[in-house]
């Protein structure tokens, strides 16, 4: 897969699950992480993705549950006419207000189940399972 250009101005990197760092860049190539390769012996029925996209459409995160490997960057894109946010339930990470077609990316560096929601419309909830 060729390098993916993210049309986002803010890329939030999670480091060790504790330290987050905002990179303020206009348009940068995403550096692929060697750890993002799916495990060769993966047998889980749920597809384990090495990078993932979540669309926000009709006040819904689609898919609402995704399973990824450690090191994966997940990118959300707002396709609604209404602004939304991607806000981790315990505020471990979060986007600014995403207007139509804005994107937000977050790289998951620790295993776990992450629940997030839209802080503007809190009935919108999604989950990222990191294995």
């Amino acid at each position, binding site marked *: 897969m060729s390098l993916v250009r993210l049309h986002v101005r803010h890329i939030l990197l999670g480091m060790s699950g504790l330290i987050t760092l905002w990179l303020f860049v206009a348009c940068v190539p995403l550096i692929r992480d060697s750890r993002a390769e799916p495990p060769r012996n993966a047998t889980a029925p749920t597809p384990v993705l090495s990078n993932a996209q979540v669309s926000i459409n009709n006040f819904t995160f689609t898919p609402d549950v995704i399973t990824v490997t450690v090191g994966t960057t997940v990118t959300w894109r707002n396709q609604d*006419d209404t602004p939304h946010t991607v806000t981790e339930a315990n505020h471990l990470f979060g986007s600014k207000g995403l207007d139509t077609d804005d994107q937000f990316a977050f790289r998951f560096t620790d295993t776990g189940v992450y629940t997030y929601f839209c802080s503007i419309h809190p009935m919108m909830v999604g989950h990222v399972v990191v294995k």
Partner: protein
Amino acid sequence: MTDKLIHTPSTDGIDRRGFLKCMAWVGTGLIWTMSGGVLAGCIQPQAAGQAAAATGDFSFVQISDSHIGFDKDPNKDVTSTFQQAVDKINALSTPPAFLLHTGDLTHLAKPEQFDTVGQVLKGAKASQVFYVPGEHDVIGDNGKSYLDRYGKGTQGAGWQSFDYKGVHFIGLVNVVNLKAGGLGVLGQEQLDWLKQDTANLATSTPIVVFAHIPLWTVYPQWGWGTQDSEQALTLLKRFGSLTVLNGHIHQILQKVEGNVTFHTARSTAFPQPEPGKAPAPGPMKDVPADKVRSMLGITNVAYVEHNSMLAVTDATLA
């Protein structure tokens, strides 16, 4: 026009004919006539103003959901419709004592959007504007920009109270610290403040509460409700007259429950679908351009002291 709808706390008094006349005015704003603190009827803005002028009582206007910064269908110029709402207010025969803005001043809480709100409202013929934030006003900073600009003199996340001619007004904030999967939240700190704020008021004091998200459960699937509103209403149930004014849902809904009257106002920016009548609660983008203004509006509330009654009038921008 003098069509007036009277009801007492024991019966809602709204007949079909009167209801339809009220609904005909839905969408440009709501004019409430307060008379002894009880919702009395539905009259046109001019009539409400005249009623207030005739009795020496007062009226105020609720505006809501201006969403400055929204630029898509069905209304690509929300500043213009917001200005029209102000023009409508300025055309009232009796100027309102003040304005209440029940939140979502802006679409994305950007500084320039807050600026535009202030510039447009500067032209309103009202001595003061009281605000509560909507969830769009607190995006990104949990309300700091909003508080810096519109929260002066308020407490906590922007809650406040004031008295005007014997009526106690309470502005509540239910849009911060929201939780995944939840509804609007007032929070314990605010509830404690509310208890203290009303502790020394006589039960005969008319109460008007204003907040962004409805304080009654309209449609939880779309987040149209406040999870701890019942606690607030319990604190206020001893009062003989309680009027609750909300925004958020961009359409008029009204409910009378005992001595409590709930009313939601139209937006000045764009209409939203009726509960459950669309896949999602976003803007109704397919409304034809020539119909949009009939779905936007203001609310005028007139208070008449001698019979302690409230009259509410909604007027559209059409």
